[in-house]
């Protein structure tokens, strides 16, 4: 029997009276990557934020199982402790707190910080206030930098390549690929552009539409179908997930 890193069971999430996620079911096998497609506002970021434990969302129903145990009632730092790491789509600005300080919190190995920041062209950014006036690409590289130092066993990546130029996509893609090869984490990756598929091997993909998940299948196939027929077609697919 396959072992699952993550199982989302019948998850319904509300903000106030508004339902944002509606009876979501999702399984991610260990060491495997799941791609999540879906139109703007469909609930993709909400799903990964709820998995991380970010507040403001009310779990009305269902459960989140991580490595066999429910994590629904754990705090964010407990989830991080268990090995869940997130790349935010919109990380907050934190004045007076330097990227380097966070890096030093994540690892005691100064050499790793030096090498990795140099590799990601973040040397100059290390001494800047976190996310304050970072360019779009710098922000994404800084998020990836922190995650790789954190070495989580489960990656939640929210649009790692959006707003990033082609050269930097390649840089980030290769780095991510090397990391996956080495550490073999499970991943849930949100993407609109599909560029990330050129670098990593993803087993499955699914599509979020209006807070519901559809159409489990091969990432390339689904991506091509979305390009040809749009998201609506995915709804018809009705494949069980």
């Amino acid at each position, binding site marked *: 029997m396959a072992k699952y890193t993550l199982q989302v069971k019948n998850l319904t999430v509300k903000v106030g009276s508004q339902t944002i996620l509606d009876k979501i079911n999702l399984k991610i096998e260990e060491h495997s990557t799941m791609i999540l497609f879906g139109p703007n506002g469909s609930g993709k970021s909400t799903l990964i934020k709820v998995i*991380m434990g*970010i*507040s*403001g969302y009310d779990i009305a129903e269902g459960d989140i199982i991580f490595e066999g145990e429910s994590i629904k009632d754990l*705090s*964010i*730092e407990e*989830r*991080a*402790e268990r090995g869940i*790491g*997130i790349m*935010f789509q919109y*990380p*907050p600005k*934190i*004045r*007076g*707190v*330097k990227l380097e*300080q*966070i890096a030093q*919190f*994540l690892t005691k190995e100064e050499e790793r910080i030096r090498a990795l920041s140099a590799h990601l062209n973040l040397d100059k950014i290390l001494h800047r*206030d976190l996310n304050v006036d970072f360019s779009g690409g710098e922000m994404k590289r800084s998020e990836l930098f*922190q995650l790789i130092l*954190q070495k989580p066993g489960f990656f939640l990546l929210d649009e790692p390549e959006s707003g990033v130029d082609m050269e930097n996509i390649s840089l980030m893609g290769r780095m991510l690929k090397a990391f996956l090869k080495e550490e073999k984490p499970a991943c849930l990756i949100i993407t609109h552009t599909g560029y990330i598929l050129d670098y990593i091997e993803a087993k499955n993909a699914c599509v979020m539409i209006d807070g519901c998940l559809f159409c489990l299948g091969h990432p390339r196939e689904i991506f091509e179908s979305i390009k040809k027929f749009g998201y609506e077609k995915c709804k018809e697919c009705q494949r069980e997930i």
Partner: protein
Amino acid sequence: MKNVRNANVRYKNLDDKELEILAGVGLDKDEKERTATFLQSDDEVLFHKSLNPGIEIFPIEEALRKYPWVKEYYGKSFQLQGKDYPEDTQGGYFIWVKKDVHAFFPIQACLFLKRKSFSQRVHNLIIAEEGSKVHIIAGCASSYTSGESHHLGISEFFVKKGAYVNFTMIHSWKEDVDAEPKSIALVEEQAMFLSNYICLKPVRKIVMYPTAVLLGDGSKARFNSLLLAHPGSSQDIGSRVIFKARNTSAEIISRAVSLGGNIIARGHLKAESPKVKAHLECRGLMLNPEGLIHAIPELETFYQDVDISHEAAIGTISKDEIEYLASRGLTKDEATGVIVRGFMDTEILNLSQVLKNEIDKLTVETLKKGL
């Protein structure tokens, strides 16, 4: 009052715990990176010494005896502002930086409270002659033996033409100590007066409203403060700049954090001359619903040709910031600590490189313990 000059007994009566408290307000007891030192405990001057012949440092009474001209300065800045000052003071330092003397290492002056129910009342006089440049680190602290004690410090600064005085004051009091510094700086043509104030330890009550009077064309002033109010403390702290000449400028910046105590953060820019440029900025963080932060910025002028502004903002740490750091594995307390230490940014202080590393370390340690 006695003066003890023998180096072997300079720290007499001070135990290790007390020396540690003094180190926490910047006292470098080996004087390796200091140009001059003054240390007073209660009403007794323990030690004073200058390593630079261009800089003299004495107890004020001794200076008044030695140099009759010092009388001309004593109380003058208060009289010019039409302000009274208490005359029943005992001790305090006299620092005289001679013409064109530049000191690389700072001068340190420490005022220490030891006795229970004692009221320390000092009068300090700082004269920076034309073209001189000096950094002063003034540490005021109370021993664990003090209690129901009081500190009153009169400070007068005379910053002459083209001189530069960078004065950093660190306070480290206790829950049962009140402090009342009163200071006025007179700043002449093209001169600069810079004041950094750091108060991160518990205290019962502090009231202060230091004032810089920009008397000469092109003179500048800057006041920066980092304030932390512990539960039960009340801090009424402001900075005032009075502009009496053209082409003058000033900046007042403060960061106030309430852990449950009260902070009134005042600021007053008073342009009594045209061609003035100044800005006042106060940011506050409320970390406990019991506390209070009251920012009172004031701008005042009769002239059209001035550019004076202020901004004040009070808030709490945003949930997003805490949760972001939590997702990197920091606990809520660790995340709060990191954010508050970031907010209490020593970058806002204008410190020389020598002092910057020291003060960074001191503030980080104090905040780590204090939060």
